[in-house]
């Protein structure tokens, strides 16, 4: 009798464990391809696509629109020509690592600029080679002397440059004593005209609230 009960219990236990293993398995991951109309996922711990995409779109578009008014789109002999922009990298001065978003941000800016009628980006390898040949650093291009030297070298290499573009990411964090926080992300683009030395700047800002509970948004901002 006892043996039968033991065997019944054993069978039940085995079935129970097997069922548990089947239901709550943590070894799987699922994915799906997003449609064009799907909104970006909102990063719960740091900035992601939902932050960088609109920041890049608005700042790059506005800066190019502003600069477009002042450029001549045809050369002196009437041939249409695009103004060439030198853009090296995104400088992260924020308190959040951008990780693989650094390259994505670069490519996004690249795509928007190359889609415009008035501007195009110079190949990054050509820029690096030019800087090395001129013996100057990217941030030294702020000084007129370094700019002239760099422009000369690029001209010799048949890669003339009209503008230098800098992109910087900054952030500021506000915390309350309930461990909720708000991070303001500021994306700044600065474009320097190599010919005139004149610089234009455009910034875009996004504020994000990070909460430890689902009601955090309601508590801090009165909405979810």
């Amino acid at each position, binding site marked *: 009798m006892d043996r039968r009960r033991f065997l019944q*219990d054993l069978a039940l236990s085995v079935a129970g*464990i097997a069922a548990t293993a089947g239901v709550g398995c943590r070894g799987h991951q699922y994915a799906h391809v997003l449609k064009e109309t799907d909104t970006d996922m909102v990063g719960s*711990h740091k900035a992601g696509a939902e932050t960088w995409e609109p920041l890049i779109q608005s700042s790059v578009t506005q800066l190019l629109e502003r600069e477009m008014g002042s450029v001549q789109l045809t050369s002196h002999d009437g041939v249409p020509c695009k103004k060439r922009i030198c853009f090296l990298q995104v400088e*992260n001065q924020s*308190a*959040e690592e*951008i*990780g693989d978003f650094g390259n994505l941000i670069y490519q996004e800016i690249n795509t928007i600029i190359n889609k415009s009628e008035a501007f195009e980006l110079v190949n990054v390898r050509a820029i690096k080679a030019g800087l090395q040949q001129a013996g100057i650093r990217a*941030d030294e291009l702020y000084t007129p002397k370094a700019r002239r030297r760099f422009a000369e070298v690029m001209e010799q290499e048949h890669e003339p440059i009209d503008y230098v573009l800098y992109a910087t990411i900054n952030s500021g964090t506000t915390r309350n*004593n309930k461990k909720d926080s708000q991070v303001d992300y500021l994306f700044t683009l600065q474009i320097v005209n190599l010919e005139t030395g004149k610089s234009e700047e455009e910034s875009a800002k996004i504020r994000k609230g990070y909460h430890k509970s689902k009601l955090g948004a309601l508590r801090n901002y009165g909405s979810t």
Partner: protein
Amino acid sequence: MTSELTEATMTSHPMLIQLSVLKSTARRATVSTDGSRSVRTLLSFVGKLCCLLILPLTGCASHFDRVQPIRMAFFDGNLIEADEHLEKLLKKKRGEKDVLLLDKAIIELASGRPKEAEQLLRKVRDRFEELEDFDPAKAVGSMLTDDNARAYAGEDYEKVLIRAMLSISNLMSEGGDAGAYALQMVDKQQQIIQTVQDKCDDDKEKVTLAYKQVALGPYIRGMLAEESPLTLHEAAKARIQVAKWEPDFRDAKIDIERCEHEVPMHPGHGALYVFALVGRGPIKEEVCEPVTQVELLIADRLFDAFSNRNVPPTFAPVKIPQVVNFVPVADSVSVQIDQKAVGRTATIVDIGEMAVRQQQALYPQIIARAVARRVVKKGILYGLEEVADIEKNSLQSLAVMAAGVAWEASETADTRCWGLLPDTIQVFRYELPVGEHTVTLHPSGRHGDFGTPSTAKVRIHEGRHSYMLGNLPTSRFVGKLLTAPRDPNDSDG
């Protein structure tokens, strides 16, 4: 594969038997109609439940014992063996996964794979952030067993040092986020200081001293800012902060002087920064500590959260984890460039001291938690005896007492910790002419250089920084000396 299967079968088999025994006893306790028989069956069920809960716990090695082979292999410079031990433990011990991943990150870094190290560190950093929130279920669980039942959320010093190692790893992989991680380091320490101050109303000054800011954060920020002539003002500010937070840092004054009044790098020159992870970092081992009135008072407060009764006085020693430091084999690293001795590294973070200081500040709370746990366990047993109306000195009473003793004996201190941390993080800066240089690092002590040196070539670019990282837990360097920027021809790692 075969050995894995065998291990799985061996562990699952007793568990199945335990489950079935438990189930059959529980059923018998429920169906019984006779009162006295019901109580006896209930007692028998509780007894078996205690035994089943305790059996898997008794005689288990602690985290301290389990990671010894990893540490030994790592200190011997055998990174492959250390990684193999670690992978085995990762499969077996899920509760120790995060802390083991931290050790793995150090192995990756020493193996010349800073990107992989950064990924692991980032993963654990995010996980520790999630675990910072109070989980009542886990808290109750830890009251019934021990602190090992809680998911390990990292010691305060570890949380800050994850960000420090992230910054160093990123620097070595030229990721561009080293500055962000350095800011996170400062921010995290500030958050911790705030939280601890809020918790310890009585001795704010003592706690603030124990949790002083880590100067490596502003050091890295200053270093990065110094690379550009446009941000020298920021560099000077960061250097001043380093001097303020770590007044004993040897190079603080020279760094400020250079940023404020000199040219950071002369024409035709660049600068080499050497980072050295020196010594064996702090670990935790189990100790039995006596209980005093202070800890009883704190336990009483802790107990208030669960019950409105006072803690009965219990002065018997409790098992708690204690931070243990090791006497460093090498004091610093002496740097030779192109056969010429140019200087020694200086300590910017003393991790051992940081860990001990923080544990001392929280010592009464650690003991109090152990006391509160003991009281909860005793309370449960007393309650059980009351409900079952067990006579004093009866056989049942003895059985319950024995179960109680076994329950308390099963408790082990939570010795989980980041075991492959260094004792100190040291730095050294030197300006060099543009070109390739041979850099040799020597373990160095009071009586000069000793042990096995390690050499690597480093390329200096005009007006730019180059970085080197060495891991020196004992008298010889473990793994590779990492350099950045890397030679594009070096495909390894």
